[in-house]
């Protein structure tokens, strides 16, 4: 709906302008499945064996470049303990993407992940992009959740799915990139969730905090 009025062609120097999109992403999942570790790996390339437990939530940002678009993720890493659940909606409200994390060595955490998916489907934006991450894939010897089981569940529910390891970095960048690719970035695309993007589509203020511009 928004016209492409502020497109690259209008830039004073005439250079093609890379589109910059900003998306809010939230990580959810049972305690100690590795949510903070995934974020730390993605944002800083680090891994701590003893990632301190997240109290409340943590906030980080990371930017990834796709072909013609720069995607800036605003990442909300939430606490896993049930008591903190009441704060979670504050973080997933308005989120365009979510990564629901479970630990492949713990069947319960997979059940819990399904509940998070349900909650997101019910309460979050209808067009939210949800990815399921089976973390700790480096501990495959202790695997309790089969890859195929999770893949089937993800397919049924239209989720992106990858097994990841924050420790070895396996699939960590990939899952964020897959989300970035799936998020609607063009003006007017993507239905409801693009409200923000559309609102900013004709914004001329080159503010880094704005969405697609």
């Amino acid at each position, binding site marked *: *709906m*928004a016209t492409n009025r502020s497109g690259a062609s209008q830039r004073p120097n005439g250079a093609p302008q890379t589109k910059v999109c*900003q998306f*809010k992403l939230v990580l959810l999942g049972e*305690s*100690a499945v590795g949510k903070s570790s995934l974020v730390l790996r993605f944002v800083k390339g680090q891994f701590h*064996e*003893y*990632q*301190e*437990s*997240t*109290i*409340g*939530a*943590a*906030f*980080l*940002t990371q930017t990834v470049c796709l072909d013609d678009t720069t995607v800036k993720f*605003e990442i909300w890493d939430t*606490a896993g*303990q*049930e*008591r*903190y*659940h*009441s*704060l979670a*909606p*504050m973080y997933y*409200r*308005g*989120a*365009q993407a979510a990564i629901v994390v479970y630990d492949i060595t713990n069947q*319960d955490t997979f059940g*819990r992940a399904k*509940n998070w998916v349900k909650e997101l489907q019910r*309460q*979050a*934006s*209808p*067009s*939210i992009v949800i990815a399921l991450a089976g973390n700790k894939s480096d*501990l495959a010897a202790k695997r309790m959740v089969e890859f195929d089981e999770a893949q089937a569940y993800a397919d049924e529910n239209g989720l992106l799915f990858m097994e990841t390891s924050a420790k070895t970095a396996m699939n960590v960048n990939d899952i964020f990139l897959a989300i970035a690719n799936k998020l609607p970035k063009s003006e007017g695309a993507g239905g*409801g*969730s*693009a*409200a*923000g*993007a*559309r*609102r*900013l589509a*004709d*914004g*001329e*203020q080159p*503010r880094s*905090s*704005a969405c697609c511009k």
Partner: protein
Amino acid sequence: MNEEALLSRASEERELIFERYERGRENLVGQIDPWEDPEFEEYHKTDRYGFIHDERLPQKTAPQKVNAEVEREKKWIKMLSQWDSPSTKEKLHRRIYKGIPLSLRMNVWSKLLDINRIKSENIGKYQKMLKLAKAWSTDVRQIDSDVNRQFREHQFYRERYSEKQCSLFNVLCAYSMFNSEVGYCQGMSGLAGVLLMYMDEEDAFWALAVLLTDKRYAMHGLYIEGFPKLTRFLEHHDKILTKFMPKLKQHFDKFGLDAILYSLKWFFVCFVERVPFSLCLRVWDIYLLDGERVITAMAYTILKLHKKTIMKLNDMDLIVNYIQVKLHKDFGYEDDVVIYHLERSMEELKRAKLDYPGNPPPSELPKRSLGMFVEPDKRSKIGQRAENFSEREKQARAAVISRREKAELDLQVLRASQSDTVSEHSEVASGAPCDSVSGLGSRRSLADTSVTSTADLSVFSSGRSHAPDNSLDTHSIVSDDGTGSDGSGLRHWRRFEPDTYASQAQPLLHRSGICGMSIQRAPSTAHSTPRGTPHPPSVSPMSDDVVRIHVTYNPLSASPSHLQPISPSKMKNYNEVHHKPVSLGFYTTNGSNRQTDNRIRIQVPSEELLTPVVDSGRIINQRYIESHTELYDLK
């Protein structure tokens, strides 16, 4: 798995975890997973190229400092021997603010918390609780997982199943039985972890008990479901910021940075892992002496000392990182200097009567008697999660959301008041009664109506003193239902029904015949919000009641299908929004206004005014919107 199998599996798991801590490190040789227990080098780190870096602490304590500490130790030992004497009372405050000598911290903390008395009154209780925990605690798994990552860089906790790790596990498990309302909540491992550095296991247990339930500290309210004390203290913190550092507050608001995002650990664990440990201990010394006022004042002091730097950081993650990570590594001030400022802050806050948020309401205090055994229900035994939020959780949820919304409103008030563009048609309504929008049943129903639109053209004013300058260039409606800041917001929280409100609200909106416009209570999040997402209506418990109006600039495609425009001609302007400037003046007809009926009038004047489009407190666009003067009455 059926219920029985789940129950037996849970109890097996509990026993297994317990057993490992009981056996301890020496008896678990070869049974600790490598990932649980990597070998730390105490003083060195090896980089990826194989070079070993010396990470020894850069400076040794200066000899004169050591001498001073020795002198102080002597004084303290004397004081400890006559703890109840008037001379101790007289000197205690001054000496504690100077810092308890490290070697005596253990004794002094015990004295301050009166551990010996409590212990002598509860002989055998701790062991009993620990035994109960082994048989019943439903928090064992969580505690185990947190013990495995608490202070692992500290020599006491470095090795998996070390003596102190086992103590930490035991203290937390025993406490989860002792105080069944709290059980175990993440954060408590930090408290107990620090206590155990200076106390033995049972003393640490009682110290934890005192911190949670003695009225001087009253941390119970922080850790129970819904975190009511956190909400209350954050509100108080905001009040202090607004009064003493309004620019900093606005700076935070500008980036949607709620205090909950940077200060949670300040309140939950008294600055553990948020300031350098040496400073943290000094704050703990004072906290144990003077209680919860210290937390409030220290929070203020941190921001006061670092205000200049923070004001230069122009991104939410930079600010959060600075406050949470950088200040932990290096606070930038000597501990003594910080404590000096902390003391000044306490005086300053006291003069302003902001040193204490007030006595805790009954909801923050334990209801069940402590140490009484309560058998956990099946759900928590199995480890299942509740399907729905409890009342308390709903309140917490609403409170948190409303805090964010209020911050955003405050920012918009600021932006509006800074703006030069003024429309003569705009007026500010304040002190309007709650039901002044009768056409929609009540203001509340109006406000609860929520459909997010693409053009968020709202700015607010309120009944506050700076309000009259604003709302003029903007498209804002201003309301103040006069509930004030007396906590009456609680009343509204209970009305919060996230699952049902949207379905109630939409017909109301439909009836009102608002075309292409949607009305929403306050901005929903710090970020763009997809249309159609229900936004739980909520009322800031401490603030004015503000109604926010969103105007969709292309109602035909952007508004929900049930919202039909009043007339296409009127909406034409909106369709042309990209090409033609529009500005909306805005006023309400309640309060001191001379209008006769309860209406909100939105005026679209013909002046061409530069109009900021505000998203979550950020101006994202300035546009001209051109139109003839149009009036839309919202009945």
